[in-house]
């Protein structure tokens, strides 16, 4: 079967992705363009009995004049004939209401000599909007073929496929000649480069004024002086002129081909806007929606998460009892299975969060949120869209980091990703609760506020405050070569298409499991190996050592007590145990001993592991919280005497967990989202370094 390349081009928010989903179904994959963090969506569609199409959903763009990394991807591909994705045919997708704006990029594509089809989406809503189109007139003026489709009703796609399969019959002629803006200049270009497409040259020349780093492998521009006869401001003026020329053509075309009954439905947008963007109610509604999202990922997810947790635990138990005992069985049952469980456990939260986010995006509400919050957020270098990730970070940083993808501006997206781990996620809660219970008196302040509750609340504030403060700091420190502008479209309100929502949820979940999941699995296996093997016989023959000790001390222990004593002994003499002892001099100034050191290292897998590890070290058999607490409160500081967990060391631990980057899964997902180890490593070093200093100061002041 023959295969051709089809590229979908169009403005953001104009149903391009809906058309892509309708053509490819679930037969698509999402990746990244090499070296950058722009999402690459591609899929395969069967066009006819003999023809398949590789379909590329290019990032949304308003024109071929790139002003962002996303748009640059589009331009680079369309200028580079040698790219393996270079399209045989381009489908320009537009919603019926945004036709005017989408025709701008359409006329540019025609000037490049690319075969273009115009697909007008939401054709089913034309009547309701009072719009009628003279297709033949439109095709004649634009020198193209037009397909009316509806992604919602799934109609018109047969016709679109038919047009794609006969793409060779499309006219390569341009429909709006841009060279009129400076005839002489364009003439000179033609003379200098007789074999090149003139408009392509023009785009390459002007990209320097716009974006500056266009890769021009294909266009052999020898450093020719002929091109440098215009200053940047002259070029900018010419570009402006070009846009005016194109819009004049478009307006004339639409005057001939499109009729609009002005009296038809216009009130919907206005009345929704009146409520959702109200100076008071707008914020109340948004706060309510945030609360709902928070509730769902915090509470509802708990049910499937507990189920996943238990299932993996029993699977691992079952494997241990079924498979013959040995290294290999233990690796599977104690290393790999819990490692995979540690990935799967995040799926409910990710799926729920993206269910909400894609609905908010699809309905057009997200743009209103940006409008409402822009003024506050821009002061901290954040976008209005940063609010959703930051608030959902209070449940878990993993889905929150992934949610920042929806922020278009790269700097704002990066800052959001970098500061999310400061917000108090739910994995910190077990650590906070047990330490607060140990060191903060259970008394009330002014007979009203419970001290323990106040401290917990304070920790939440510290987390959020730190996130906002570091965002502001990063905003001041990070330099961008170009000024960032704020121009956002306020799309029409739409009912979300369930298929689009479903595909987003599946995509995001898949990209987490197969992207960040690999790293999480690898690290959890390493941590397991470090805790399950030791360098000497004290580990391998722990049983004998413990039995001897018990004998010599004349202790009378039950089988269960003996076993917990053995596992505690093993952990102390495992690699991780020695690492804990190794870092003791480093953590001592914070008020910790080597046992806490071990717990801190192993809780890198997930913060809540801290409590479980301490339970094993102190050889408290069950994970019953009260027993662990009791045991912890009895622990004596070996150096200075007195309780190990006192106010000073307790506060120091609380602050350490508030600030330190103690979560490998977050690092993995940041790596995946930023496409480099640079940013997660920076987070690790800066956050943990900061946590260390703060805890050090706190302990030294309080002790």
């Amino acid at each position, binding site marked *: 079967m023959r295969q051709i390349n089809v590229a979908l081009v169009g403005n953001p928010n104009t149903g391009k992705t809906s058309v892509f989903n309708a053509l490819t179904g679930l037969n698509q994959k999402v990746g990244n363009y090499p070296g950058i963090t722009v999402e690459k969506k591609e899929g395969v569609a069967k066009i006819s009995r003999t023809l398949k199409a590789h379909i590329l959903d290019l990032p949304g763009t308003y024109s071929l004049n790139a002003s962002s990394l996303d748009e640059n991807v589009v331009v680079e591909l369309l200028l580079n004939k040698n790219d393996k994705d270079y399209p045989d045919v381009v489908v320009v997708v537009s919603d019926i209401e945004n036709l*005017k704006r989408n025709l701008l990029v359409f006329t540019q594509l025609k000037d490049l000599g690319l075969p273009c089809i115009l697909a007008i989406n939401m054709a089913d809503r034309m009547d309701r909007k009072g719009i009628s189109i003279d297709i033949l007139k439109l095709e004649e003026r634009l020198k193209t073929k037009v397909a009316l489709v509806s992604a919602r009703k799934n109609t018109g796609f047969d016709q679109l496929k038919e047009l794609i399969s006969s793409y060779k019959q499309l006219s390569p002629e341009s429909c709006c000649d841009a060279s009129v803006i400076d005839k002489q200049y364009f003439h000179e270009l033609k003379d200098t480069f007789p074999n090149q497409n003139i408009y392509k040259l023009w785009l390459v020349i002007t990209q320097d004024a*716009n974006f500056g780093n266009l890769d021009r492998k294909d266009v052999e521009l020898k450093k020719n002086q002929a091109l440098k006869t215009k200053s940047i*401001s002259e070029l*900018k003026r010419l*570009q402006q002129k070009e*846009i005016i020329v194109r819009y004049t053509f478009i307006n004339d075309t639409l005057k001939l081909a499109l009729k609009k009954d002005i009296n038809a439905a216009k009130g919907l947008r206005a009345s929704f*806007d009146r409520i959702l963007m109200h*100076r008071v109610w707008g914020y109340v509604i948004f706060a309510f929606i945030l609360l709902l999202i928070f509730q769902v990922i915090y509470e509802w997810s708990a049910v499937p998460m507990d189920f996943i947790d238990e299932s993996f635990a029993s699977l691992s138990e079952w494997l241990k009892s079924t498979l013959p005992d040995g290294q290999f069985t233990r690796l599977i049952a104690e290393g790999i299975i819990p490692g995979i469980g540690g990935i799967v456990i995040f799926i409910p939260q990710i799926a729920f969060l993206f269910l909400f986010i894609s609905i908010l995006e699809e309905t057009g509400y997200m743009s209103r949120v940006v409008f409402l919050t*822009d003024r506050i957020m821009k002061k901290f270098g954040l976008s209005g869209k940063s609010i959703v990730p930051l608030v959902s970070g209070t449940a878990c940083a993993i889905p929150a980091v992934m949610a920042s993808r929806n922020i278009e501006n790269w700097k704002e997206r990066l800052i959001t990703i970098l500061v999310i781990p400061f917000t108090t996620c739910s994995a910190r809660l077990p650590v906070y609760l047990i330490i607060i219970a140990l060191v903060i008196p259970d008394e009330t302040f002014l007979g009203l506020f419970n001290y323990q509750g106040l401290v917990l609340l304070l920790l939440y504030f510290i987390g959020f405050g730190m996130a906002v403060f570091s965002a502001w700091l990063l905003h001041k420190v990070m330099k961008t070569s170009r000024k960032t502008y*704020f121009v956002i479209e306020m799309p029409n309100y739409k009912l979300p298409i369930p298929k689009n929502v479903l595909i987003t949820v599946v995509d995001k979940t898949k990209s987490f499991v197969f992207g960040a999941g690999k790293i999480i699995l690898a690290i959890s296996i390493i941590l397991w190996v470090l805790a399950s093997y030791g360098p000497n016989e004290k580990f391998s023959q722990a049983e004998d050592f413990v039995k001897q000790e018990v004998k010599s001390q004349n202790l009378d222990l039950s089988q269960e007590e003996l076993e917990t004593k053995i596992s505690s002994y093993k952990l102390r003499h495992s690699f991780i145990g020695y690492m804990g002892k190794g870092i003791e001099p480093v953590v001592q100034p914070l008020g910790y001993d080597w046992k806490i050191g071990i717990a801190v290292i192993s809780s890198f897998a997930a913060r809540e592991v801290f409590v479980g590890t301490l339970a094993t070290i102190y050889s408290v058999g069950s994970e019953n919280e009260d027993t662990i607490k009791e045991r912890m409160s009895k622990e004596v500081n070996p150096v200075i005497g007195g309780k190990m967990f006192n106010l000073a060391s307790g506060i120091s631990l609380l602050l350490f967990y508030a600030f330190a980057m103690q979560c490998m899964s977050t690092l993995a997902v940041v790596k995946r989202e930023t496409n480099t180890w640079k940013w997660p490593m920076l987070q690790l070093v800066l956050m943990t370094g900061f946590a260390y200093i703060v805890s050090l100061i706190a302990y030294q002041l309080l002790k």
Partner: protein
Amino acid sequence: MKSIADLKRGQKATIVDISAETIPLKLLEMGCLPGNEVEVIKMAQIKDPLYLNINDTHLAIRKETAKAVLVKILED
């Protein structure tokens, strides 16, 4: 000369001039061009950002950008 930032809510005007140096090309591409009509639909506190209808496109821009688009107010 007045700019978009001087308009009141609901007021309509015709775009007269834009400073190509300070305005992002993206705004022009969305239809913010001399001769087109602009209407302020909503504005947030202290007029920042502004929610506009330009040439049938609904969009929001910050006040600093709005100041760079000069307009002639249409009396109605």
